[in-house]
Every structure is written in structure tokens, then in C-alpha cells.
């Protein structure tokens, strides 16, 4: 039996009929066309599907869509766009932090949550925050440096 779920996605109020077995990733990718959230494993082991739910990183691949009712969900598309990029997105491009790029949506989302709660993380703290994420291309170094660069950029820009 479907139930009506109201939530905010990237700042916009949405209302959808969701089944009990529907997951947040399906809602985002298929119902809302927000395909930047990536399917990687479906078992919280790779971090490719990470989104923010009320500012905290959450695995969209296992998060029940009905549990998102009343929540504020941010995806990679909600962080920034080519016209108005988030400091992290700019830093990742500046440092060419990625190869195939499949892991980047989830990593950038987790990094955004980290910078929100800790604006000046150490390298070790960044690595710890990104440990739920797998990158198979081996772009880890650039990714760590890009998060540091974004933190500096945010600190240097007027609030």
C-alpha cells in the first residue's frame, strides 16, 4: 500500500506516493530525475549513493523513501551547478580530483557535511570522513587535497 510522503529535496517541497519497499535512491533517480545520486552496491558499503538528510550523510540505497517524510534531502545537484558551483565542486575541478568520477557525487556530499560541522578539518579528519567511500581509480590524494582546498576557499570568502 503506497503512502503519501512529503519532503524537501534540494530546497523544493515534493509530495509523492511511495511504496514501503521503495528506497530514497529510487525516489531521487527515477521519480525526480535526480540521477546524480549513484547506485554502487545497495548495502552501505561503497558510499556512491550518499545524500544529505537533514545535513547528515545518509545512504540513499537503503534509506526507506517513507522514512524521508518531513526531512530535508540534499543531493549532488542541490549542492551546486555549473553556473553556481559549491566550493567543493570548484576545488575538485581545479585539482582534477577524480578519474572516472563515479564515486564523486557521494564523496562531495559527505565532504560538504564534514565542512559544515568542521570548517577546518585536518587531512586525517577528512580521510576519516571519507572512509565510507570507495574510489577504485585511486584518485584519493587529489580528493583529500580538493577537500582541504575547498575548506580554505570557504574560510577565505566572506560569509
Amino acid at each position, binding site marked *: 500500500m503506497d503512502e503519501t510522503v512529503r519532503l524537501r529535496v534540494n530546497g523544493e517541497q515534493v509530495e509523492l506516493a511511495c511504496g514501503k519497499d521503495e528506497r530514497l535512491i529510487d525516489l531521487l533517480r527515477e521519480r525526480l530525475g535526480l540521477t546524480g545520486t549513484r547506485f554502487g*552496491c545497495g548495502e552501505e558499503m561503497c558510499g556512491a549513493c550518499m545524500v544529505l538528510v537533514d545535513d547528515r550523510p545518509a545512504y540513499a540505497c537503503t534509506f526507506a523513501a517513507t522514512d524521508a517524510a518531513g526531512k530535508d534531502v540534499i543531493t549532488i545537484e542541490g549542492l551546486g551547478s*555549473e553556473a553556481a558551483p559549491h566550493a567543493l565542486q570548484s576545488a575538485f575541478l581545479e585539482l582534477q580530483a*577524480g*578519474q*572516472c568520477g563515479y564515486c564523486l*557525487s557521494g564523496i562531495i556530499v559527505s565532504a560538504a557535511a564534514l565542512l559544515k560541522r568542521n570548517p577546518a578539518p585536518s587531512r586525517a579528519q577528512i580521510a576519516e570522513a571519507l572512509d565510507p567511500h570507495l574510489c*577504485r581509480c585511486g*584518485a584519493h590524494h587529489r580528493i583529500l587535497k580538493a577537500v582541504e582546498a575547498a575548506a580554505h576557499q570557504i574560510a577565505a570568502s566572506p560569509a
Partner: protein
Amino acid sequence: MTGPSLPRSLLTNPRLSQWIAFEAGRVLISSGKVELGQGILTALQQIAADELCVDMARVEIVSGQAPLTPDEVYTAGSQSVEMSGGAIGLVCAQVRETLVAIASDRLGLDPATCSVRDGRVHADGAPTGIDYWGNIDALDLDRPCDGSAPLLSRRKPRFVGMPVARIDLSEKVFGGGFIHDLTLEGMRHARVLRGGFRDARLATLDEARVRRAAPVDILRIGGFTALVAKRQRDVEVALAAARPSASWTVDAPDADAGTADWLVRQQCSTRTIQAGAEPAPSNSAIRLRFSRPYLSHGSIGPSCAIARFDAGRLEVWTHSQGVEQLRQALSMVLDIDIANIAVSHRHGAGCYGHNGADDAACDAAMIAKHFPGVPIRVQWTRSDELSAAPLGAAMAVEASATLGEDGMPADWKLEIWSGSHGQRPAMAGRPNLLAAEEAGLAQPAADVLDVPDAAGGGGTRNAFAPYVLRGQTITHNLLTRPTPHTSALRGLGAQVNVLAIEGMMDELAAAAAIDPVAYRLRSLPDERARRVLARCAELCRWSARGEAGTGVGLGIACSRYKNHAAHVALAARVEIEDEVRLTDIWCVADAGLVVNPDGARNQIEGGIIQAASWTLKEAFSLGDETTVSRGWSDYPILRFSEVPEITLEMIDAPDLPPLGVGEVAVGPASAAIANAASHALGARLSTLPLTRETIAAALLRGA
């Protein structure tokens, strides 16, 4: 450059028009190579812009659209810059020279006074009004490329050698860019029901139970079973219901499949390659056996494909590394004339070789044939990406040598046991497509072939030691039973061969009581190899290396990829308590002219980290359904908190031809880490991965 030394890509695709077209102020460059995250499209754009003397923004690369783009076989072997870049460079240079000739003929100018600026000919600095776009017919693009035009990208480049930002990365940081995001009108979703092994074939299925779970069509062709529905959620629910109601026939692999002891007792075809003097029998040889288990490509995004069959024509969208070869293989198994098949590349997650991409494409095509006019999207599960996709071959390599009277190695022998590293679609005329085998449309080949030595070898890749030796004997035992389906994984056999050669050099140096770097330099003839090794030793402060057996180790290794491509020397530092912690890597690479320095660095760093992950952590577990690797918890790879610091230097060699870099570091990285861990322990470690268990076993053996 003259005719006989043309890149292979030009010999098979000789006409200029196969590579280049001009359109409304833009240049369209066609390539058969595809973007895997390695930045090839950007490198090709740089080369084309330099040779044509146009701004990079005018150049658009059309890649991997079979049959429209040139057939350049697979995007593999770190050859794309050499092959596709080499071809595109010569094609564009010839077109540029033709434009200059048109201008000088028409205006009676000395060609030496003419130059091309952003596509327009200037004479003595003044515009002539003659450009590419107004002279498309006169450029006569339907003639062959003769390879005679001088290459500006070598002599005075504007873009080549610059750290140009990758054209494919920008949309990906905003959430776009992948085949997984592609939606076609009326598209339906499909899942293929698979057992825990590639060889598992469905015996029974409670179809009623599956249909009760969700509104799906069940398509069964022999042992191939697909679930199809309008909504993705429905196929997933149906798949979850199907799994417990399915039974399988499978000859489960041995529990110890992939170990060195298992490999050496398998049925093999054996050949011997001899270079120089035959070895003399010796009882005093140092003999060491190195091995790696089966490895997974471990792409982060499980494979995905879309296919549509309409009015006898099949269109396929795939992240395959070889679109033309996939097209040929699909034609073989689906009984569709190849003229009626089009295969288009779209970006997938990094693949590092032959992962599930081609098999997913065949899945989609097989299903699409039964739903005419309906686009079918197949998404693999994580479990299938690990257990149904081709694996990287397990290998054992036994090195043996005696110490000559001069302290240098004598009687050098290397014996290799390995499955195939080359079973891609259409290789050796075989489809090599899983769904076709399941459906009984193709039989698995009765025999097994490996990548030929002329193409760089599979199990024999980098099997020849780069040192001055009186002779080398290589025995190649190719596993001939079709044990787990293995195929290309980054570097093929180079990882374990370099591990063995460089581990052996350390042991021989120790026996001769000579420093390992000095020992290598004594017998390393190639100047470029000596330079990278000496520089790497400097970078890692080799001279301050401590005693063996302290728990902290420094190790070094070098190799020339495929014995004819880029040179790499690499040092690793580890600390061992319970586990091996890799703290630092120093790497020096000489890849000739580097088209995109930042892109090349990114590739080498990635190769180092992937090899570190293989060396320290990765082992694909076979055995039965309870032990096979199905998820990341069964197949851990290196995480952010485990990656080492990396110091990387590229030798500046702009006068030497460009060489690929994607795979060049995996052998030396693996060998340097193993040498460092052996130094830390004061005992030889030769079984990968270097986990607590394998280290304990090595110490027990040594005790």
C-alpha cells in the same frame, strides 16, 4: 615518420575522412578509443588542436561509435596515446599542410611564409582569407594519410605538454555523465537472474512466486533468465523473490582455487621461451615462488547497458572498452547481420580492463530482441559485478637463479602458471559473452588462448628481466581448463612477473652482500631505466635505509612496461605491526613526451593505489556459494585512511615519442611494497595479498 612506421590504427583506417571532418567552425575528430576516466579524449583534443593550429574549443572528439568511428580495437594496454593519438596527429598534420598548400598555390605564396592560426592561413602574419571550413572539398579528405607531414605538437606545441583540464570530468562533479543516467522513451528495466558463479546455470525457478511478487515478464532462453518490467522497483522486487526460488547447476570451483599450490597442479599447455644461453642445471639455485589470487576489477558502478531492437536493427549503448569488437561478437551470437548493428560508447565507472560491461550489453541485446521496439535497460547488481564478471587471473611465478662468480645472477629462469588474460569479445574469433553461453547460443571455447607475445603477452607480460643476463628461460604454463573466466585486468601478467623478478633481485643482492640498488645498477643496461632508478633511490633517501627486520621497511623496484614502453622506478616504505601499513611511495617515470602532464600523473597515482590495494588486501574468494565474494565486505579494497603519501616525478623527455601510462606502475608498485615488507620483517614475503594470514604463514615457513 614514413609509411612502414605508421601507427596500427592508420594502417587499418587509412583515409583522412575516417578521422576528421569540418563543420560550421568546428572540427570533428573521430577516435575508436574511449574515455574510461583516463583522460584520453582530452589528450586527443590537445594533439588535434596543435596539429591543425586551431583553438582546443573548436575540436570535438567523437569516440567509440561503431561502425562510424575508426576501429581501433580495445581501449587497453596503455596504447591509446600512441595509437589513436599517433594517428590523429599525422592525419591533422597532413590536413594542415594541405591547407597551406592550397593557400600558397592559389595566392602564389612561398609556403614557408604561411602559417595557420586558429584554422586560418596567414602569410607573413597577414590573413589570407583561406581556412579549413571554406575549403572542405579542396582538402580532399577521402585520400589516405601518408604520415609524411611534420608534427607541430612535437616541435612547437601550444596545448600538448600543458596541464589541460579534462573535458569529461566537469559534468561529473555536478552529478551527470554516465550511461546509468540515460533514459529512452518507453524504456523498460531488466535484471538477469544469476547464481553465485559465472558458470552457474539456472536449473529450476518458481515463476509463479516471482510473478506474485511484482508485475514482471520472465524471459527464459536456455539457462539465461531475465526479469523485465516498466518500473525498476518491480524488477528488483521480482529479483529478490526469484533468488530463493531458483536452483542452479554449477561445478563449484575448488576451495583453494587461485592459490599457488592450486595453480601448479592445474592442467596447462606449456611452452618455453629462451633468450641467450640455455641455463646449466644447478643445485645451488635460489628459488622463490610468488603468487597472487584471483582479483576483481571492482568497478564502483555495476555494469549497465541499454539496447533497442527495431525493424531488424539493433542499437546498443554500452561502457565496453571495444565497441567494434562487441558489435562483431553480438552479430555472432544473435544472428543479426553486422551491418544492422550499431554500438555506442557511453561513460561507465572505471573498469581497469574487461569487467562486466560487455556481458551487460549482451544481456540487454538478448532481451531487446524479444521486445521489438522497446529500449531495454539492464543494470547489474553488486554481487554480479563481483561474481559474474570476468576476473583477473590468479598467477604463480617461480623465479630461480644462481649467483655467478662475479656475484651477478646466472642461470636465470622464470616459470609462470596463469589463466588467460585475454578473453574479451571477439578475441580469437570467439564471442566470450556470458548471456550467449547461458542461452546455449555460444559454447565456451574448448581450449584457452592468451594474449599473444607480439601484443605484449598476457601471462608473459614483463616476464623478461631487464637486466644483463647470459640467458633467460621463461616457461609459460597456461591453464587450459576453463576455470573461472579470466580476462584483462590492468597490466595483465606484469604485476606478478615484476614482483617475482624484483623480489629475486633483492634476494640475489642479499646473497651477494651488495646493496639492492647498486646491484640492479650493475646490470641494468638501459640509460633511461638507470636514470629513473637512480633518481628514485635519491628521492626515497635509499642511502639512509635501515637494517632489515626492524618492523619498518624500504623497498624498491623498477621495470619497463611490456619491456618496450614507459620506464618506472618506485620505492615504498611500510611499517608492520599486526598488519602492513603503507606510509609512503616515491615514483619516477619516463614516458617520453607527455601530452597532458596532470592527466598522466593522475593515471600513475591511480595505478599505484590500485596495485597497493591488490598487494595489501585483495583476494577473490571462490569455493562454494557460502564463500564466494559477493560484496565489498567479502572483497575489501584500499580506503581513504589507508592510502600512502605519494611523491611522483616525471622525467622531462619531450623529444621522445609519447608512451601510455595507465598500467606502467602496477608491477613496480606491487614489487616495491613486497620488497619493503620483506625488508621490514627480515623475511621474504611472496604470497599476495600481504595480509596478517599470509605474513604469518611466511614467517612459519621461514622458521
